[in-house]
């Protein structure tokens, strides 16, 4: 039975069963609001349900409330506290401690990522010169999966981005009669930024997540252990073919994206800005320098490495069951896109200011 004995005191007597928790909570919340020095008197509780004990342990952590209990209920609450993990100091980390743990975990992860990346580079470069330890035809197979199958989506999205980018800029350029500069804008925009970024983001979503999901599934189902026991290195057998094929495929896809994006701009130039084919084509050749292409290719190669390394990192570090596979795939995409955009920003600044 629950009753308020005075404005500061809430008293429970007899059985404190689990289905009394809701009623108790109402009184408890009311007491917290109205009383300056609240007291909960449980000294006459004869028996409490396990859920009620858990709730009492929860409210007993509020030091502003005085809780009076009999010996047996107190020992039940203490027992629950220690068994549920709140009895130890680990669960009560301060903000500063939690920050230290988070920062130290981040650096630990950074170190493991760096070590894994170095290993992947070592085995991938080695795998170029010596194909033993990797499956015959696996690089070509991965090229089909990662490169060939991504052509339609990369081409379509690049065309649309080129088209829309030109369309939005065309209206502004038209006001100044600077129609011909749409070519400069779209060529430089696509080759230096939109082409590499757009292609990498599509591939990070398509291939990066697949790499993380595949490796994490292989880890959970002991396939990686099986490879090790067959005297095969999983980095060389599973990751190196992906690394090699994406290093080749992403620059090719980027070239395709750049050209198709420019084609999108060409459509707007011809149909909306009254440029002739010759004007557009000649201006394109003038603007398009080898230096721009070199930058574009450098970015795409770096992005391809980031996609594979981050996918592999999240794949290998997975622990737990099938739900961890989904988390690994999602995390790898988020981290890869973040890394791609950060790297792009740094490279663009370096190239722009010629540092």
């Amino acid at each position, binding site marked *: 039975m629950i009753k308020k004995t005075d404005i500061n005191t809430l008293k429970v007597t007899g059985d404190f069963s689990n289905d009394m928790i809701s009623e108790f909570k109402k009184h408890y919340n009311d007491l917290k609001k109205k009383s300056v020095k609240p007291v909960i008197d449980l000294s006459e509780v004869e028996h409490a349900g396990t859920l009620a004990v858990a709730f009492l342990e929860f409210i007993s952590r509020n030091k502003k409330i005085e809780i009076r209990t009999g010996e047996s209920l107190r020992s039940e609450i203490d027992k629950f506290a220690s068994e549920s993990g709140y009895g130890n100091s680990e669960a009560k980390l301060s903000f500063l401690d939690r920050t230290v743990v988070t920062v130290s975990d981040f650096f630990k992860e950074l170190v493991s990522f760096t070590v894994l990346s170095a290993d992947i580079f070592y085995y991938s470069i080695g795998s170029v010169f010596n194909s*033993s*330890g990797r*499956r*015959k035809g696996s690089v070509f197979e991965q090229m089909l999966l990662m490169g060939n199958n991504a052509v339609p989506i990369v081409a379509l999205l690049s065309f649309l981005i080129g088209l829309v980018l030109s369309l939005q800029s065309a209206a502004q350029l038209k006001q100044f009669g600077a129609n011909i500069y749409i070519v400069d804008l779209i060529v430089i925009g696509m080759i230096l930024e939109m082409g590499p970024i757009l292609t990498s983001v599509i591939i990070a979503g398509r291939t990066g997540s697949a790499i993380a999901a*595949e490796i994490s*599934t*292989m880890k959970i*189902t*002991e*396939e990686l*252990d*099986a*490879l*090790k*026991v*067959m*005297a*095969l290195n999983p980095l060389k057998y599973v990751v190196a073919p992906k690394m090699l094929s994406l290093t080749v495929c992403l620059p090719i896809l980027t070239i395709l994206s750049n050209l198709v994006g420019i084609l999108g701009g060409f459509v707007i130039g011809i149909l909306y800005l009254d440029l002739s084919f010759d004007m557009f084509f000649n201006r394109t050749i003038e603007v398009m320098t080898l230096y721009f292409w070199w930058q574009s290719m450098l970015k795409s190669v770096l992005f391809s490495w980031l996609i594979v390394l981050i996918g592999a990192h999240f794949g290998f570090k997975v622990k737990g069951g099938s739900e961890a596979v989904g988390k690994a795939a999602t995390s790898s995409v988020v981290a890869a896109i973040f890394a791609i955009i950060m790297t792009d920003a740094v490279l663009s600044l370096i190239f722009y200011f010629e540092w």
Partner: protein
Amino acid sequence: MDNENVIEIKNLTAGFDGRTVLYDISLEVKRNEIFVILGSSGGGKTTLLKHIIGLLRPEKGSISIFGKNTLEMEVDEFESILKRIGMLFQGGALLNSMEVWENIAIPLEQHTDLENEVIHRIIRQKLSLVNLRDAYYLLPSELSGGMKKRVSLARAIVMDPEILFFDEPTAGLDPITSADLDKLILDLKKKLGITLVIVTHELESIKRIADRIIYLQKGKNIFCGTIEEAKKAGIEEIDRFFGWNKD
């Protein structure tokens, strides 16, 4: 030759995440015997197996296979040891993206320079041995649990290993399939002279196949010997495990 120790473990203490799981384990496995690792769940059986095959590194102690300490070996030398052993994982651990024949072909393609035709013939022969000739072009997802284990067994024996490790080979299988798999294990021992190290807690299976057993209780070796010796030892935990203390 049969008395030669193919595996020798001395004072192995091991664990992970700062938690010790195995305490001071010592054992020997002799050539051509079936050695069974027993114990209650969480007792450290699979952890011990993973340490023997090098998937985990111990904190202390030594592990010798074919007379050589594997913990002091270079990677290349350890790989040459791995080529002489096979392992059947609990879930089969078949590569899901590859067909059955491709899975069995992995060690042959990577560690031999045999012609493709010879490789295919070897795979067919191994699949006949495990009664799965028709599964040649199937994907692992199209196989039942028992079939996966048999394909995994075919892959494990394809290089004619001298030692074969099994992690719970009959777990989750019906009694008839379990008995068939046990028969296959006994055949492998008899026909190919393989040494077998098996982690299991299937009582019937243990009684059918074990030459010697080790019993781990909370990571400690409380008995190592034959089943007959275990019966006479009068260790309460083992008696309860085998149901020998029933009135």
